[in-house]
């Protein structure tokens, strides 16, 4: 105030600074902070959305595929097939019966027919009904009235198909004539077509074509051509004729295609071991053809080509419906998926050997990489002198952790080549032992890095105290440091193994991506490590390439779910170990 009175000039008003009012600068800062927060939240949301989409696409396809449709059929051990010469039945005679033509196309086909008949299903009638329904629908949509009455009153669908075909041909001839120049010929052809339609029973359509003939005389050929094309009679008749021809065309093979005779070998073995079964029956569950899964689950409606399960027609779908209504088809959990071997046929494909192969490889990885990894780390961390050489080794271990996995596959192939040169042959190719060794090489750096970090985290006071009471260096390390570092080492190991479990690329090069020939492995102590093995990721690869959409977009995801669960379990174990044993100083 005094200053002001001295200078005499009014003091410029001081900036109104209020604690409650934010200056522009502060506002901007707050805005930036808020923007960063929102960006962070957006990033996390995006990640969660992607994760959600991924999990949804896997689980929504993979979980339903773990349930399978099965037919319960009564196997009839038909003496006409098993004992065709009519004499005494012998085991050798039955063993000589072919599984495909004798059992699948014989025993199973006959048994399926019998099962349907016993359930009160009229097989031929069902098929014919479906096709006649189809033909009626075609006639209706082509504007050919009275179609259903004509089909009802016909003696045989095949004869009717012929009649429709003739009418269609007459219409086609008329169409051709209308494209020509000769009005008389066109009128004649149209009249003939009208008569053929009348003969087939389509009075209204016959009248229509007759009126087109009048048009041809009056307004010219072009107008008549347009009028005739607008009717769609010709295509309708041909399509209806095709459908009607199918009505009589039921064959045993159409019915057999509905199931997959997966257990034909078991059935043969059973009757070989028990000859009394010949002429008798037993109940068996057989899987329904995998292509029908999407129809049975309602995903495909069976109407129109785009909704038809590939390889099936409406006659067969009518049989499937009848079987379902009769309670022959039921839906069960697919336990066999976890024990069966991979098969090109999705109805019986499984991941049994692959699960075992992966488990054995992980066992080998555990032994090799833990042993060598921990040994190397202890040496490097506790005993090795700190010099340029150990620095160099350290850098290269870190580098090795970043080497792409396919490189290890090539390395594995090179090991194989060397062993081949040493006379081991290729008998190690494709075994869990080789796969495990290659994956161990890949896992080693991860474990070495984790182990060294765990050893470093043990405070020097522990070592000093141990040395101080007279323990040797080796005693210090093994009695005090290592046990304290163990939780960290285990966590690193588990994460390394989880990573190795999902590795595909190296396995493709060393013979573990086989589609057949790998069975359930025997115990690792009796040579199971040296049997041809499969692995989970390569079987997922095979499943995802299957030509059948149900396998590609169902079973492949089921196998992925199994793998994900294993990985989650391993990671969960790692977290539990860390929580349980971790010590902080």
């Amino acid at each position, binding site marked *: 105030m005094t200053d002001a009175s001295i200078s005499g000039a009014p003091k410029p008003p001081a900036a109104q600074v209020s604690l409650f009012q934010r200056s522009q600068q502060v506002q901007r800062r707050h805005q930036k902070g808020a923007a960063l927060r929102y960006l962070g939240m957006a990033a996390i949301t995006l990640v969660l959305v992607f994760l959600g989409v991924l999990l949804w696409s896997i689980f929504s396809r993979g979980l339903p595929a773990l349930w399978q449709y099965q037919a319960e059929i009564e196997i009839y051990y038909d003496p006409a097939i098993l004992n065709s010469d009519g004499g005494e039945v012998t085991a050798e005679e039955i063993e000589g019966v072919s*599984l*495909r033509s004798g059992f699948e196309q014989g025993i199973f086909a006959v048994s399926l027919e019998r099962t349907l008949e016993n359930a009160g299903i009229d097989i031929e009638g069902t098929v014919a009904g479906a096709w006649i329904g189809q033909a009626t629908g075609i006639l209706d949509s082509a504007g050919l009235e009275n179609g259903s009455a004509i089909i009802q009153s016909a003696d045989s669908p095949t004869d009717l198909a012929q009649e429709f075909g003739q009418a269609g041909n007459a219409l086609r001839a008329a169409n051709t004539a209308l494209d020509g120049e000769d009005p008389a010929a066109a009128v004649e052809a149209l009249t003939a077509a009208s008569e053929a339609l009348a003969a087939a029973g389509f009075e209204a359509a016959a009248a229509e074509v007759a009126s087109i003939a009048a048009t041809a005389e009056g307004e010219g050929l072009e107008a008549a051509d347009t009028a005739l094309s607008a009717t769609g009679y010709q295509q309708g008749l041909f399509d209806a004729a095709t459908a009607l021809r199918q009505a009589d065309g039921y064959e045993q093979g159409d019915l057999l295609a509905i199931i997959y005779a997966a257990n034909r070998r078991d059935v043969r073995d059973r009757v070989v071991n028990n000859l009394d079964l010949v002429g008798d029956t037993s109940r068996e569950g057989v899987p329904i053809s995998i292509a029908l899964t999407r129809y049975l689950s309602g995903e495909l409606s069976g109407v129109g*080509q785009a*909704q038809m399960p590939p390889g099936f027609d409406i006659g067969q779908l009518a049989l499937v419906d009848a079987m379902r209504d009769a309670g022959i088809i039921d839906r069960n959990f697919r336990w066999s998926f976890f024990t069966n071997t991979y098969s090109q046929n999705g109805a019986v494909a499984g991941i049994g050997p692959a699960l075992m192969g992966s488990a054995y490889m992980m066992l080998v990885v555990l032994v090799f990489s*833990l042993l060598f990894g921990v040994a190397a780390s202890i040496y490097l961390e506790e005993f090795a002198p700190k010099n340029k050489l150990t620095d160099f080794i350290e850098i290269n271990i870190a580098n090795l952790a970043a080497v792409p996995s396919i490189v290890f596959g090539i390395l594995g192939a090179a090991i194989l080549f060397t062993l081949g040169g040493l006379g081991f042959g290729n008998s190690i190719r494709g075994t869990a*032992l080789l796969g495990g060794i290659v994956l161990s090489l890949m896992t080693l750096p991860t474990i070495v890095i984790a182990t060294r970090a765990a050893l470093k985290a043990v405070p020097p006071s522990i070592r000093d105290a141990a040395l101080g009471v007279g323990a040797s260096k080796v005693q210090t390390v093994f009695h005090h440091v290592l046990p304290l570092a163990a939780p960290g080492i285990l966590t690193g190991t588990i994460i390394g193994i989880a990573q190795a479990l999902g590795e595909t690329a190296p396995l493709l090069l060393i013979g573990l991506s086989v*589609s*057949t020939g790998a069975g359930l492995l025997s115990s690792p*102590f009796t040579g199971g490590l*040296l049997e041809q093995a499969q692995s989970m990721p390569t079987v997922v690869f095979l499943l995802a390439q299957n030509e059948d959409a149900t396998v590609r977009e169902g079973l492949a995801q089921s196998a992925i779910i199994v793998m994900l669960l294993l990985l989650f379990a391993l990671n969960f174990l790692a977290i539990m170990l860390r929580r349980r044993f971790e010590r902080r100083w």
Partner: protein
Amino acid sequence: MSHLKFSTAAIAVVAVCAATGAVAQTRTNVQVAGSSTVLPYATIVAEAFGAETDFATPVVEGGGSSTGRRLLCEGVGEGTIDVANSSSLMSDSEREACMAAGVTPVEIRFGYDGIVFASDINGPSFAFTPADWYYALAAEIPMDGAMVANPNSSWAEVNADLPDQPINAFIPGTNHGTREVFEENVILVGCEETGAMQSMMDMGMDEDAAEEACLTLRTDGASVDIEGDYTQTLANLDSTPTGVGVFGLSFYENNTDRLQVATMSGVTPSTETISTGEYPVSRPLQFYVKQEHLGVIPGLQEYVAFFVSDEMAGPGGPLSEYGLVPDPELAATQEMVSQMGM
């Protein structure tokens, strides 16, 4: 803790050593590798062979036709494979290398694979001729006495009868045996039929150069090479519904709910039209068996005979059920196989 760990480790090491000692057993299964096109069917045969006979199920692996042939020609002995599946024929140089390694490969043709052109089932249908494909995919076409970059961007520009859709072709990559058939039976035929090849030669190119010009496909994105298998082609069609893809007949038949097939020169592809030769685009499928291993590897002779038996490869058998085309001269092949064992 450490005691437990050391004892498990010790047990495991002993186990590994014990297991390694068991190496050098005699191999009791047939080993097969090769073409990924043949792989699914070879898997079906191997599974059936394992179920039908008392021999061990053969080990079947993919890897590709040329990899399979290379593995076959590595040499003779239990450590090498017995059969190489192949969707293309062995070249003379490969055969020489094979003989040099002491391997006599015997070629056995077991059927045909039709190559079909299919598009999304909800789109318009196509009726192609080889000429359409040549004009759609060639990098440069002769016009008024000079080679000009292919100006066609829609199928309707290529041929007024085709739907007015942009050209988006998904064709097999150069790593596929199918590619060769596509080039030889479609593009080259189209190039010759349209007279384009003749006009190129009139421009002064020699025959080889003209052929090469015929087979050089555009790289402006209208034609996409698919290096993976048919499932990848299908995935591409799903994301580009206006596209046209090249598939095997078997794959198409298993996916008729998504694909519609195009006719070629008016012929619809089917096992019948392919076996009669009416449908022009097909290729033989074969495998090469190592003569030296016959009678040495248990089950090899039987596997080969089983593969070409009427029950598997004949009409109505699993081969045609899968969507491949039976070989009309199967009887001659069977005769040859039965002679081979002598």
